[in-house]
């Protein structure tokens, strides 16, 4: 509801942009069962943990629809950087050389928006990734993304707190969360692989919490 209103407010600003096309799809309903929803599970790699300094290096996403990850929808977009990769290259296994073949930020963003239309965006540790995405969106279209978002990390934290289990540092990393659900090691660290890992985590979280019954978008937030 709130999102719809905010979108209305920015509607004029984003006219004729990919963001507008994305917004044109109706927002998923809160009472909708998760199997009827489409999720776009996304992960971003960036050159710094500080959104003001860093920039996006790559985006990876994959759709979850009809209760399953649709592997064919997976995309991995390297984003052309202005400043080179810098020191975090070792973490992200991205090198300037590879980035030469990357697409400009606008194209990557447009592709993401096209994939995200009508879907719920899912991220692990959403604030950071969203900050980057929103900043880019504002630069490009003058408005934030204003997409419905689910954060698997927040979901996990809430779940653990509800059960009163103590949280040790590092217990909520993607890998640790997955291990908690008996999901296999997901190995390498790139945006798409992390997105895929997050998508599997999302399925596991939903499966455990729904116990096979009805489970709505509202329950996810």
């Amino acid at each position, binding site marked *: 509801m709130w999102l719809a209103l905010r979108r209305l407010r920015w509607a004029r600003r984003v006219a004729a942009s990919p963001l507008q096309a994305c917004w044109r799809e109706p927002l998923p309903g809160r009472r909708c069962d998760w199997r009827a929803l489409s999720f776009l599970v996304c992960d971003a790699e960036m050159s710094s943990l500080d959104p003001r300094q860093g920039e996006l290096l790559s985006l990876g996403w994959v759709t979850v629809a009809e209760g*399953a990850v649709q*592997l064919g929808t*997976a995309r991995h977009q390297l984003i052309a950087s202005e400043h080179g990769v810098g020191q975090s290259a070792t973490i992200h296994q991205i090198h300037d050389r590879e980035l030469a073949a990357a697409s400009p930020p606008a194209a990557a963003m447009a592709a993401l928006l096209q994939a995200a239309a009508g879907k719920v965006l899912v991220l692990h540790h959403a604030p950071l990734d969203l900050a980057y995405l929103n900043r880019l969106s504002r630069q490009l279209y003058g408005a934030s993304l204003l997409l419905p978002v689910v954060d698997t990390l927040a979901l996990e934290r809430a779940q653990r707190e509800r059960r009163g289990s103590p949280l040790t540092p590092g217990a909520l990393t993607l890998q640790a969360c997955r291990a908690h659900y008996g999901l*296999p090691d997901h190995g390498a660290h790139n945006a798409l692989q992390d997105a*895929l890992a997050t998508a599997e985590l999302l399925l596991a979280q939903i499966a455990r919490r729904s116990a096979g019954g009805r489970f709505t978008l509202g329950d996810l937030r």
Partner: protein
Amino acid sequence: MNRRPEDQPDALRPLVDLAPVADFLRRTLPFQDLPAAELEQVLAALRISYHVHGSTLLADAPEQGLRILRSGAVDLRDRDNTLLDRLGEGESFHLGGLNAGGDEVRAIVIEDALLYLLPDAAYQRLRQRNRPFDRYFSSQRSRRLRRAARYQPAPNTLLQDLRGCMSTDLLTVTPGDSLQTVARAMTARRVSSALVLEGDRLQGIVTDRDLRTRCVAEALPVSTSIAAVMTPAPETIDADSTLFDATLQMTRRGYHHLPVTEDGRLTGMITSSDLILARQDDPVYLVQHISRQDGAEGIRDLLAGLPQLVLQWHQAGMRAQQVGRILTAITDAVTVRLIQLAEAELGPAPAAWCWTAFGSQGRAEQLLGADQDNGMILADDARPEHAPWFAALAHKVCDGLDLCGYPYCQGEVMATTDSWRQPLAQWRETVRRWTDTPTPAAVMRVSIFFDLRAVYGDAGLCAALQDEMLHRASRNSIFLAALAANALDRRPPLGIFRRFVIERDGEHRDAADLKKRGVMPLTDIVRLHALAHCVTAVNTEERLQTLASERHLTIGDSRNLADALHCIQQQRLQQQCQQVLRGAEPDNFLNPRGLPTMAREQLRDAFTIIDQAQAALRLTYRAGLD
């Protein structure tokens, strides 16, 4: 406005972008040899779903296709709720296909499972296009068997490796630290031990007890450096070892702390309290008690309950190969104890020597009712006058083993036989003679002898002998051909048209000998491959793994053989357990008619695999003749 079609400037490159999934598929059997182009299509069509424990997948669900288990486990049950199969990671099933006969097969998730679904359309298309892939699914044989053998229920706690229970949060100090610093750190961390490291290297260990006995009791000043009181160069254990190994090592030596290393690097610590949980109804106690007995009679009494214990393990879901390992460890312990007792009586050995186990004990694949196969290798500096000492020891140990329920070997493969108790040089000569003149008798001895493992004493002697034997055997293909003839001599009990062949008369009428016609030919086959390629491992499964990783066998062949072995050994164990329950003497004869259909088919498949491996053996080592 029309939606734009989803063609992106950066299209999906499945093999690169989805590399982990692709790698996983490449490790699973039907996908392993798929050409890249087809693998890409599979990847693009896959759907991933997660199913919690207890959920059921039905054949009439809207989504159908081939399901591949990425993790977790699934039971397949039919209409009558009979368990058809248990599947684990990397295995696949197709409910539609299973239900072709109208059996209402369903899949029940027994461990939370991540499933990859290859939708029917893509699956059928692939089967049409790729013949090997299609053949994999149309050849029921390997599939059915693999399903039966691959899945293992939650591994017995004792056989877990140490990573799961060791503490990784270690307190490390440097050799220069003072007693007080260390004691404070230990108190602050509430741990009972600290590891002394210099750089990366483990220098020593210090425990509460050390502080008590070596410092406080001696009234050392608190400023003494810790290096003075630590236990230097402590024994460590590899993280790959099992809990069983760790417990054994600690109880034997009376340690309470064992640093754990991985590739020589310190990664954790395991303490006796870590092991307490794993201590119920386990063979460790048995082994421990064995090592405290003062005579063979005591050991015999301890072992009297062994069949019951095996029964318990079997009922608890322990697999045959694990039972085999543990039973072998117990035999080893008995042997070692008997040797120690004999040494205590006869005085120290006059020369270096090694007690070696052969046959199933050597391979660590013993089941109940095994007889003894052993020998002694003496160092070359053992003089003739030392011979009586070794002979006396051999007799004491072999008699003791017989008393403890390991009957004498009919073929006299025992340390008491002079020709099985020789100096290394003579052993070498024996090996040379055997390989140059492979008479059937020599070949039979050799096939027991080639599965050798040092149990006690100087393992270097055993290694030297094994080295000699591998060297001689691998380059003499006439000898290998004779071994192959021997391996081909015992056929699996399948007649023409794959009917079971059973003994027609005698004590075991209507039964098939699982050991002689199943395990032995299979072991022979694997041993022959191992010898031909200089593989030092002796355990059949390890041999198969090495053969596959060195590419002498394909992964598929190696797994088929391993699965066949598991399947037969499992039936054997089950049969023995039932005999124990009935109060009968365990043997190896099984009447296939008494088995449920599924188990009988699996057994048949296992024998078919042996039959096929024998045919391949004939091609490889006997130039296709006879």
